[in-house]
């Protein structure tokens, strides 16, 4: 919820945002009408994957950053596979 509020306020201040969240938070993210969200199939507390999996962390983060550019409307929610 907190990050959802941060995203909404930053967007209003003309700062684009991308949220990386675990799949379990999908309902929360959708209910908050966020601009861009990447949902990861990871366990709670590990949205970027398991510890020291540098390759996976970079891939997830890169996918999220690409979504910053590709999204063209509020509510762009994508699953990471």
């Amino acid at each position, binding site marked *: 919820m907190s990050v959802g*509020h941060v995203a909404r306020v930053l967007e209003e201040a003309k700062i684009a*945002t991308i949220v990386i969240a675990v799949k379990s938070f999908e309902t929360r993210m959708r209910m908050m009408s966020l*601009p861009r969200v990447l949902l990861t199939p990871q366990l*709670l507390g590990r949205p970027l994957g398991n510890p020291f999996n540098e390759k996976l962390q*970079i891939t997830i983060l890169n996918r999220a950053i690409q979504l910053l550019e590709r999204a063209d409307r509020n509510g762009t929610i994508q699953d990471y596979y």
Partner: protein
Amino acid sequence: MQKENRPESFEAFIKSFFYGKRSDLSFKFISELTPENASIFIQGLFKDLMDSFDDDDLERVRQRLLQGQVEGYKEQKNFEYDDGPFHPLQKPLSSIKLTLLTSSGHFLKGRDSKPLGVENMTQEEAERRIFDSLKEAPQLSEIPFDSKSEDLVVRHGGYDIRAALKDPNVSFPYQRMVNLKDQGVFADLTVNAYSFVGACSQKRLLKKTLPDWVDKFVNLGVDAAVLVPV
């Protein structure tokens, strides 16, 4: 008169994982399941564990946990907005300045914000006092992107921090941001990454702290922010 020793109900058992006598932040979602679904989850987990012992493949256990967590959280609807803002990126990625802000509760050693006025609060106390934290305004921790991971501390009463203790990048991917900047994916980073404890008063966050945070990011010339909830 001697106190009656009643057996614990299954419903009480599953509720106890949510800040009760069996508090477990990785399994607190069980309290959100119906007793029927909780029993199916636990039984399935036992079965998966035995199969995983046999073939040394933990993926089915991970999938079982993931499905349980998704099921447990799917009805949580604390805030609802019909629509929301959208600010399109004004430049190509290769020329933007990014920052990182997470609600993971990371901070630098020696720069503890002393939540609830407590010096050196432990993770155990943070969990025990979670409902006090939910009344407080959040404190923003500044963490230089070139910090060593061994200089970071994490404490958060709302989630299981064990993975984040081993590697902060699981929820605070500050080193991975540097990796992607070095690869030329985007142009620049702020000097600091930012973190706060997301288990805070939403009213205070919106009214008191967020306006200051926004001013800070605007003054830093940030084009976009990567945000990570936990």
